[in-house]
């Protein structure tokens, strides 16, 4: 994984997955698809006018299927369906085995053979590992971890942070 010493949060780049209203305040979320707190966070963020960058942070000991699920999301991204797969994974966290991943890919209308080859391939694994290494270097200790204005908030956001996010989301944009 290379150098894992402290480094600033990697800037949002071409490899990142971003959604939310153009020009809205931006948060970077490190999460994994097997983490219930991440699913809850996503749902609540989705209700706000916030731009969300999602990066993978799978940790085997806590969530054994998180890495495979992250690779599935990246394989869907190769067919332009990152967010639909992302939402489908968070929507049903009890079903993350291979047949469940194929089932999602089929429902999303993806090329199943390509999806399955991609999700086991080097490129998807490299993307997930790059996210993880960047997270480690930026001090991400657990999922979810959220960055707002370069500030790290590890674990479930408290109500003070939610209030801040809600205020930002309604603030007039300049």
């Amino acid at each position, binding site marked *: 994984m290379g150098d894992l*010493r402290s480094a600033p949060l990697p800037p949002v780049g071409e490899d990142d997955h971003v959604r939310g209203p153009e020009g809205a305040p931006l948060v970077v979320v490190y999460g994994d698809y097997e983490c219930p707190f991440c699913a809850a966070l996503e749902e609540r963020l989705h209700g706000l006018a916030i731009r969300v960058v999602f990066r993978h942070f799978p940790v085997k000991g806590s969530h054994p299927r998180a890495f495979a699920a992250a690779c599935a999301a990246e394989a869907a991204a190769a067919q332009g369906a990152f967010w639909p797969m992302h939402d489908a994974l968070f929507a049903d966290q009890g079903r993350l085995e291979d047949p469940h991943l194929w089932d999602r890919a089929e429902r999303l209308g993806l090329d199943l053979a390509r999806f399955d080859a991609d999700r086991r391939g080097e490129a998807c694994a490299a993307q997930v590992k790059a996210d993880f290494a960047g997270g480690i270097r930026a001090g991400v200790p657990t999922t979810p971890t959220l960055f707002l204005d370069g500030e790290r908030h590890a674990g479930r956001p408290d109500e003070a942070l939610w209030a801040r996010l809600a205020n930002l989301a309604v603030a007039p944009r300049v």
Partner: protein
Amino acid sequence: MGIVEPGRPAPDFTLARYEGEPFTRADLEGRTTLLVFYPHAFSPVCTDQLSLYTEVLGELRDAGLDALYGVSCDSVWVQQAFREQLGTEIEQLSDWEPKGAACRAFGALHPGGFPERALIIFGPDAVVRWSYVAPSPGDLPGANLLFDALAG
């Protein structure tokens, strides 16, 4: 008393192991060792912390760490069950009797009677190379701190 500072030799201490002779100061000699003090086995934050360090164990070894142990005031049976649940090769050391004595010797005993969330790296000479205490037991130190310390 605060955590033992870099440059200080490790104090004498005894920690029980699930199998074999107790772990003492002599076990620190000859290799770079990290002790991860955590408040309680099975508590959610501790689970995350040890899982995270397990995930980067290979990289920690590449960075020069020879040995890594978890330390808590739980009994060896609880620690072993915790280790099995995490599926980690990180061995656990128990500060059960007299409770917290080793943690106290390292300056890592929380007033609540459990270890602070603390990290100590010892050089092969059993001298403290780096030490860290989290601002509160709920704060999880990222693995980047370990890589910084090992590079320093």
